[in-house]
Structures are given as C-alpha cells and as structure tokens.
C-alpha cells in the first residue's frame, strides 16, 4: 500500500441515508485455505455422518437467518436465504460430495471446499450480474457449512470489535444480516445497487451506506480515515482537516434534523391551521405493521397480500391467510389495516395461476381480472379477510378496477363469501369497509359514480401515471415520458378527491408520490385525507405537514394545476419546500 494519503473523493449509489465519519475496517470473506487430509478407509462412514450432520445444522442456521431477515428486512432479503436453503437441498450435489469423500478418501471439509470452488469459479466467470451475485451466495453457504463442520457454530467471523466504517467488495448476506449497529457506523462497498441485500439490510438497520462505488476496498487499509455521505453517495478517503470539520457540521445538522423528527414522531400530522391528515404505512408482511407504529403511522393503507403467493409454490389456504391478516390487524389495532386483494399478473406470477405469455402484461390479465376469473381463490381470500374483520379493524380493497363491472362483480363475490361464512357460523363484520384502488384513468374519470358503491378510494399513483401517460414504467427507453406530475395526472387526482368529498368517500393515496416530501404540500392541497407510504418516510412527511397551513397547501395545489409540464410542477414544488426547509439535501435527492 502506498504512503499516499491525500484526500480522494469517490462516488457510489447512496443506499441508506446519514453521514458517517470514522476509520476503515476492511471486511473480507472468511475463506481459509483448506488443505486435504487423507482418511483411512475405516474413517469414511464417520466422515459421511459428520458431513450429513453439518448439512442439517447449517440448514437450521439458514432457516433462522431467513426468519430474522423477514423480520428486519422483508421478503426480498428473506428470499436470498430461501435460495441458500435450495442449495443445501440439492441431493444430486450432496451425493456428489458424499461420493467424492468415499472415492477420494479426503476429509469432508476439503471436498466441500473444493466442490464449491469449482462452482464458484464457473459462475464468477459468467456474464450477467445475476449469476455473479450467486457466487457470493455460494461462498456464504460454504463458509457456514465449513464452520459447522469444524464445530465453530454459526458465529460470523471477522466482525469489528470497535466502532468502524465497514469497507468491503460486498458483504455476504449472512455478514450483512449480522451487522452490529453499535459498532458499524457506516458501510461502503464496491458492488451492489439500491436493491442489493446489503442496501436493504443497511436501510432497515439505519446504517449510512453507499454501494456500487467501483473500487473502494482496494484503495483503503484498516485504520484509514474515511467519510461517507449516505445522502449524496460521496465517499471521502483520507479527508483533510477542513473536510473533516465540514462533514462534522453536516453530520450535526443531519442529526439535528433526525432529532426534530424524533420529537414530533408521535404527534398528529396536523397543519398549522388544524387540518389533520392521516399518515399510514404500506406493508407486505404482517410484522411490518410494527414499523408503521414505530414511525408514528396510524394505520396500514396498503397491505400487499401478493406476498402470500410469491413466496411459495402452492396457493395459501383460508386459515393460513386468516392468520396473516389477523396478525397484521392485531399489531395495528385499533388502527385500520387495508388489505388489497392479490395483485398478480403484470410482472408478478405464481405457479398455481396460469397466466399465458402476453404481449402487454400490464394491460392484460392481472389483479382483479385474475381474481374474478379464479373465483375459487378469490373467495378463499375474501373469507379470510372477512374473518379477520370480526376481530380487528380490517378493510378490503380491490386493485385494478376500471369501472362498475369489476366493482359490482367483486361485491357480489364478497356477498357470497359472507353467506358462506354465515352458513359455517363464522363471525365477520357485516359492515366491513370496501374500497378500490384508483389506478386506471377510466376509474378516476367516473370516480363520482363509483363513489356511490364503495366506501373508500386509494389512488395508486405508480400505475395511474403509467396508464395516463401510456408509458411502461419498467421500460428505460421511455423513462423520460413517465411523468408523475403530468397535468393530466394531477387533474385525475383532483377529480377523484372531489368525487370522494361529494359522496363522503374517504380518499387516500398509496403510491410512491404519497411518500415524496416534495409532493406532500400538493397532495394535502388537493384535498387528500390520507397518505400511505413506506413507514420510514412518515416522520419527514409529518414534519412538512406540521410546518404548513392547509391554505398554503391549497395555494400550492392551485398553482401547480395551472402549470404546463411535469418538469415545471416538480421544480416549483421543490422550490416551495426549499424555501421552508433549507439545508436538508436529502429531501431533494
């Protein structure tokens, strides 16, 4: 390593906000050289037994990791460990390992190390990010397996014992899952994106993190000074005293802002002139309702029930679903939980539901359309939701409704589900509130009519934008046309709110716009009564609402509605926010 310790600035993807200043701890994969040990033929049966036991122990350890991952980080990270379990369930591979131990008469550690090494070698050389990431997974599984084999148990080695900023090529899922918040003040990695397991876990643990820096791990040694700004993505190696002072100030300001949010977290989201807005959370696992509570949310505005299908091959039973809905309602009680019936199709598939290859899946067989053609599954879900409504504050919401046809048909199925429960003498709330997602322009246009037949609307802005401006939101080639603040979109939101107000139908929003600080004054000004978002955004949005008057918000909305382009609206909204909350760059990233 050179003695050159001049300040150097690198950039990466800001994956978890906050500023960290500290010293480097490089984390490397624990990959010891495993040397072969020759076995006597008489030792082989014992060695095979040792191998099988280590598989069993590792499997249990991974299952525990999966459960913990689901707990702290959600389905995406849980799936990583599910994949690890699949590797350990590969009987063909395990048999090969057993065969090699018997034939080659080497110890299990060496054969495991070597068998995985061949796989890792081939996969690391392959094209395509998704396969190279698998090499990380294989190393992770191998490390755990070797540790159990040596009787070291499932302690993750190479963890810092003092306060540090971790620098690594990448963290293995197990390493990331076992980070100690008390010691690790920041993370910087060479690889990864916003959805990498490191990023997801770091966010859930509130550790400032930058990923995808390219080469940071090769440029530092243990003990080097480093600053990372998780708000901007900037990494400063060997900071000068000036930079040190500058970032200490920045960190203080940011912490001050965090404390401010902490102070108001459990206050109501009420404007200076007294209009109260409900701030709710979007969840996909029941236990995420705890996070909604912890962030000061007073309800779940969107419970995505698809996860019940996406994490398994078979369709979930009524009892299984009931337990999940009941759990969410119990955690959130007495506040409401809005359960959206499963939104499959589009880009979400399930092995138990046959969806043909479609030219335009987002205009195709998805969401309520799937439910209405698979009434068997639909009714199972509605019965489960109804049963939960007898015990908690539960509401049901139908996605992807384009008009009366789907709404009335769905209501009819709901009615049948109620009758079936009556026959079975199972309790439910006969007056459970029923709502629809407003995410198709036709539904927004006739919202005044639809309002006569349901209790609430929730505007799904992601899809509403996609369909209003006819732009596939996953198609990068036309990303510039995906305009969230398009005047057409704003008018549809306004129409929906007005229609709701006229009929006493509660109107909320549960798309990404709902959790966007810049959009908050606009949405409040348009008259929305509830904003539902990722739980972690609730305090910031609350702070904004509590700092403004409803009158001001209405003025902002009126002005925005007169503008010609999405771009104009966006810069206007940012400007308005900047005027009031200067110096908080994270809000404008």
């Amino acid at each position: 390593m050179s003695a050159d310790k001049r300040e150097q600035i690198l950039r990466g993807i800001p994956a978890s906000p906050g500023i960290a200043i500290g010293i480097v701890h490089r984390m490397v994969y624990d990959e010891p050289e495993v040397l072969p040990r020759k076995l006597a033929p008489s030792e082989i049966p014992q060695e095979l037994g040792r191998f099988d036991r280590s598989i069993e122990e590792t499997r249990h350890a991974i299952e525990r990791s999966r459960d913990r991952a689901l707990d702290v980080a959600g389905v995406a990270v849980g799936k990583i460990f599910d994949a690890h379990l699949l590797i350990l369930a590969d009987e063909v591979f395990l048999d090969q390992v057993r065969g090699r131990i018997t034939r080659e008469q080497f110890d299990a550690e060496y054969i495991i190390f070597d068998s995985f090494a061949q796989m890792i070698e081939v996969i690391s050389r392959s094209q395509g990010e998704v396969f190279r990431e698998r090499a990380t997974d294989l190393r992770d599984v191998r490390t755990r397996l070797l540790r159990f084999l040596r009787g070291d148990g499932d302690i993750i080695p190479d963890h810092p014992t003092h306060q540090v900023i971790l620098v690594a090529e990448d963290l293995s899922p197990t390493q990331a899952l076992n980070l100690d918040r008390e010691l690790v003040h920041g993370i910087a990695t060479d690889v990864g994106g916003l959805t990498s397991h490191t990023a997801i876990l770091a966010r859930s643990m509130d550790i400032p993190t930058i990923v995808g820096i390219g080469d940071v791990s090769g440029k530092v040694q243990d003990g080097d000074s480093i600053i990372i700004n998780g708000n901007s993505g900037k990494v400063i190696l060997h900071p000068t005293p000036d930079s040190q002072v500058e970032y200490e100030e920045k960190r203080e300001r940011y912490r001050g802002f965090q404390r401010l949010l902490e102070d108001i977290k459990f206050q109501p989201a009420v404007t200076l002139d007294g209009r109260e807005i409900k701030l709710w959370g979007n969840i996909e696992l029941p236990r995420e309702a705890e996070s909604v509570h912890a962030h000061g949310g007073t309800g779940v505005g969107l419970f995505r029930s698809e996860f019940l299908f996406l994490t398994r091959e078979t369709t979930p039973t009524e009892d299984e679903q009931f337990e999940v809905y009941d759990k969410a309602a119990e955690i959130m009680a007495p506040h409401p939980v809005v359960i959206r019936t499963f939104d499959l199709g589009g880009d979400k598939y399930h092995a138990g539901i046959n969806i043909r290859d479609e030219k335009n899946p987002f205009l195709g067989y998805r969401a309520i359309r799937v439910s209405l053609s698979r009434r068997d599954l639909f009714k199972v879900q509605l019965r489960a939701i109804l049963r939960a409504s007898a015990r908690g504050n539960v509401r049901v919401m139908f996605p992807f409704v384009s008009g009366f046809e789907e709404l009335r048909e769905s209501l009819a199925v709901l009615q049948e589900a109620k009758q079936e429960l009556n026959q079975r003498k199972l309790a439910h709330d006969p007056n459970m509130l029923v709502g629809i997602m407003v995410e198709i322009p036709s539904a927004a246009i006739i919202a005044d009519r639809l309002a006569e037949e349901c209790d609430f609307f929730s505007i799904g802005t992601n899809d509403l934008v996609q369909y209003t401006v006819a732009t596939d939101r996953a198609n990068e080639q036309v990303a510039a046309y995906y305009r969230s603040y398009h005047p057409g979109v704003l008018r549809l939101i306004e129409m929906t709110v007005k229609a709701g107000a006229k009929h006493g139908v509660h109107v909320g929003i549960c798309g990404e716009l709902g959790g966007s600080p810049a959009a908050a004054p606009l949405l409040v000004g348009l008259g929305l009564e509830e904003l539902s978002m990722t739980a972690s955004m609730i305090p910031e949005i609350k702070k904004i609402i509590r700092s403004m008057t409803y009158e001001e918000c209405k003025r902002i909305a009126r002005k925005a509605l007169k503008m010609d382009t999405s771009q104009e609206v966006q810069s206007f909204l940012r400007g308005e926010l900047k005027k009031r909350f200067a110096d908080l760059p994270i809000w404008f990233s």
Partner: protein
Amino acid sequence: MIQKEVTLLNRLGLHIRPAAQLTKIASKYQADVYLLKDGMRVNGKSIMGVMMLAAARGSTLVLEAIGDDEQQLIDELIKLFENKFYED
C-alpha cells in the same frame, strides 16, 4: 432417449429461482434428465448443476431425457421454458 432444443426467454436467464423450478419438476420424474450447453452437460435434477450453466436470456440449450416417462418430463419442461418460468 429424447433430445429437444429450447431457448431461454425469461429476462434474468436460468438463475436460482428458475433453476429451482426446473429441478423441482425434473425430480418428480423417474427419468434422468440432462441440460447441455456449450459443451457442458449437467444433471437437470441438481440446482447447483443447472446454475453452473449460467445460461442467460437468449441462450439455447438442449434438454435430454432418458427413462420411461421421458416424454412427459420433456413436455412439462418445455412448457416451463415457453412460459418464461412464469417470471416476467
């Protein structure tokens, strides 16, 4: 023995979840099944083997099945490929 050529149409290729679906189906049958690509020949009942092909979108593979129920096995696998592993 039957051999059949297939093309991978799903966006992410034969990564871990599609590989899991494939091996799960393969394991239901008595027949042996192999996947051939670029001179590699792996056991279709092994997720590690299938992943090792690192088959990306657009690549062509040969499915080979040997055994009594080879035809049903191949038919079900082809359906999986045609449906893009129900992924995207």
